[in-house]
Structure formats: structure tokens, C-alpha cells
């Protein structure tokens, strides 16, 4: 049970990360295509605030404050009782609200598969494609060193 709980948490976090990284437009489009229910009671927000971003001295040393970032959060409750949350960089309130509903739906065992296949999977695949493209473009700028033959002997 312990292991199952940990796996569930990891999957829920991964779904939330995908939603946070995706654009509001993509989420709205897929939401409408899949006709996901958007009925929910707003318990908090959506509201925009600041999160202070921390780095580490030397990359791995003691933490220090770098600067702030805008973050929008929302908390919703579904008619079926599940409470969902969203925290995402930026100021997109519509996105925060839908992502919180998605998190709540994800927690409903009857809904999880639908949310994963119709929303999370396509978003994740689009993000992966974009990241792979960037990686390949960066890889093309890798320096290949070669040694000049001096011809002394």
C-alpha cells in the first residue's frame, strides 16, 4: 500500500508538472475537445502572487534568494468532493483554474484514466517534442575538436 501511495503521489505530481509547464491555450483546447467537466466550486483564487526563487551558492552550496517570479494558484472542489490544486508560473488565471479542476478529476479513480489520456498525455507529448527539438538544435552546436598534425617527424 505504501508503495502504491508513493506511486500515486509521483504520478499526480507529474501530471501537475505537465499542466504547470503547458500553455493555457493548449489546456483550453484539449479540455474542450475532450469535453471534460469544468463544473467546480472555487475554494481559493485563482489569484496571482510571488514566489521567491532560490539558488545555491556555487551551484550546490547554501541557498540564497535570486529574485521573484509571478505564480498563479487556484483550489477547487468538485461536486463529487475531490479537492484539486494548481500552482503555476505566470498570471494565467483560466489556466490555473482548469489545472486545479484537472488535479481534482485526476484524484477521482473513475476519472483518472480519462484525464491522463485526453489531457495529460497529449500535453506531455507536445512538451517532450519541443524539448527534444531544442536538445537536438543545441547538440548541433557542439564543438568537435580535432588535432592538427604538426609533421615534425
Amino acid at each position, binding site marked *: 500500500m505504501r508503495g502504491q501511495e508513493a506511486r500515486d503521489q509521483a504520478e499526480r505530481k507529474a501530471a501537475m508538472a505537465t499542466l504547470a509547464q503547458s500553455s493555457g491555450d493548449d489546456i483550453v483546447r484539449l479540455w474542450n475537445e475532450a469535453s471534460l467537466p469544468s463544473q467546480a466550486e472555487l475554494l481559493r483564487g485563482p489569484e496571482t*502572487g510571488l514566489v521567491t526563487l532560490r539558488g545555491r551558492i556555487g551551484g550546490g552550496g547554501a541557498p540564497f*534568494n535570486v529574485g*521573484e*517570479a*509571478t505564480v498563479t494558484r487556484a483550489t477547487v472542489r468538485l461536486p463529487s468532493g475531490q479537492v484539486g490544486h494548481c500552482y*503555476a508560473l505566470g498570471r494565467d488565471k483560466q489556466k490555473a483554474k482548469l489545472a486545479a479542476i484537472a488535479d481534482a478529476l485526476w484524484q477521482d479513480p473513475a476519472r483518472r484514466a480519462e484525464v491522463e489520456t485526453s489531457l495529460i498525455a497529449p500535453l506531455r507529448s507536445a512538451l517532450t517534442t519541443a524539448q527534444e527539438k531544442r536538445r537536438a538544435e*543545441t547538440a548541433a552546436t557542439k564543438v568537435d575538436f580535432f588535432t592538427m598534425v604538426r609533421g615534425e617527424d
Partner: protein
Amino acid sequence: MYVAVKGGEAAIANAHSLLADRRRGDRSVPALRLDQIVEQLALGVDRVMSEGSLYDRELAALAIVQARGDMIEAIFLVRAYRTTLPRFGYSKPIDTGTMRVERRVSATYKDLPGGQLLGPTFDYTHRLLDPELAASADVAEPLQREAEAQAMPRVSAILAREGLIEPDGEMPQDHVPGDITREPLEFPMARDIRLQALSRGDEGFLLALGYSTQRGYARNHPFVGEIRIGEVELELDVPELPFAAPLGTVRVTECQMVNQFKGSAKAPPQFTRGYGLVFGQSERKAMAMALCDRALRASELGEDIVAAAQDEEFVISHSDNVQATGFVEHLKLPHYVDFQAELDLVRRMRAEYEARENPAKAEEKREAAE
């Protein structure tokens, strides 16, 4: 005599509507959209985010267009906006070792795991103006190459294996990171607070100070151990979730400067380090920050303080361009009463001076006046 005066309301209102007109410019030229600024003036946007100390591309773009491209004014606008928002908390420290790297170079190791990735750099360009850009020519898609699945450890970790370099900067176990947005500056300050101030500091000021250390004012033999630019994931611990909330990714630039150090009473000969971490793609700023960070560690490392770049109070008190511009630019606001007082004072001093230097002439003047 002091006479209270009012006025200028109409002039101020009209000046602001004139500003709005001039900001927009010729109406037959299409207005800039924010996404155009975000996409095509990306490094300017990054500078406003870094010195405005607020990671939000659209807001930085809005600030740039509102400020007519005046970067310090744009930074000021962003700083002012920040104060209107509530604070949700402090993120977990980002891990630059897991960065999705878009550029990574080292000037100390040619063959390092992950290799030298030039990325979208101005380096090795010929700095020739390109007239084709003015004609909006199409730009080809960049080439792609299969990326190797190789980890990219920070260069500092490679050097650490030899034991010739100091570790990443540690603070005492119970140290809580200081926050200059919450507490006033106090000198001397801990390195973490200094780094926060440097990260939002003025690029030009830090660049000049970094340059001064290279020219011999607090020389500290720097090498770029590594510069890396890319996206890192951001997480926030919140009470309502059993795990850290994932917030999305931010692009940052990190610079690890490595400095030869001949040793002192406090520390043995080794490589010491300066660190730079800045929002966005801001390589020059990250390098300048790392040079200043190292110079400001003089007393920690037992070095003599002989130059401006080593003087913590001087550097940190003057690195914030919003504070600097506020104090310099306030000089143009009405100082009529102050000046009247000074005018009286200087007149009196001048009269006394003349009476002392040339009594006859002063007497003549006094009589003529009467």
C-alpha cells in the same frame, strides 16, 4: 521668505498625454505587440526580468514598451509592480545540475562530459551589421543533431575531485537565507545576501567593476570554469500538498568563475570561486556577478582590501539601478526653497570675502547700493 506655491497640475497632465503620444510615435507604423518583444527582443526582456527581479516575460515586455525602450525605467516599473502582489513563499533551491542545457561552455576544460555546446551565442560572429534583417528576410530553421544522452555535471564537481578547489559556498547549519526585500541592508553582510543584491544589480555597474578587477584593481586571475544557460524546474513546498508543488520551468544563466589564489594566512593556495546566477539568458551579467562575488570575498579569504570592487558597502550600496536613478533623478525636481537658502548663504559669504580681500572696493559697492 518662504511662500507656499501650488501649480503645475495642467502642465503635468498635458506632459503625460504628450508622453503617451510620443511613446506611440507615428500612427502609420504598426504598434508593437508584446509577443513581438518577448520573441525578438528576448535578451532585453531578460535584462528587465533580472534587474527588475521578477520572472515574468510578458510583464517585462510591457514595461519595455511603456518605457519607450528605456531599460532602467522599465526595470523601475517592474519593481513597482512587484510590490502590489502577495508572497506565496520561497521556492526549493533550483538544481542547475539538472538544467535542460541550451548553452554550456568551459574555458578551463576542453573535453568535459557533455562537451562544449555553443548554443545561440554572439561569440564568433563578426559584428557586422546585417542589412538583410532590415528587409525582414526569412530565417532558415536551425540544424539538428542527435543529442547524446550524457550527463552534464557542473565543472566545479570535476575540479573538486582533485581537491585543489574550494567547495560550493556553505553557510552555518542554522543559517536562514537573508532577503533584502524584507530586511534593510546591513554591513558587513553574509555572502548569500550579497549574491541576492548582485543578481538584481545593474549590469553596467557590475561589468565595470568586474573589468576593474581584471585590469589590476584587486586582481584575482579569473577563468570561466563554466557558463551554462537553460531551463530548470521550480518547486514550492505548500501545506496543502504531500509533495512540493511543481511550478513550471524558468530559464537562468549560471557562471562558475574559477580564480587562482596564492594563499593567505586564512586559506591555503588553491582555486577559489566566484558565482553568478541570473534570470534569463544574461551571460555578461552572470560573469560580472561572479567576478564581483569573488572580489567581495576578500576579507573572508584574508586578502588586503585595496580596490573598489572589494569594498562591500561601496559595491552593494550602489549596485541597484532603481535606487541610483531615484536619487540622481530627484535632483531635477523643484528645489526652489533649498536653492533660495543657498543663494542667500553664498551672497553673504561672497560679501564677506570681498570685504576681507578688498575693503575699499567693498565700501564703494556698499555706498553705491545705498
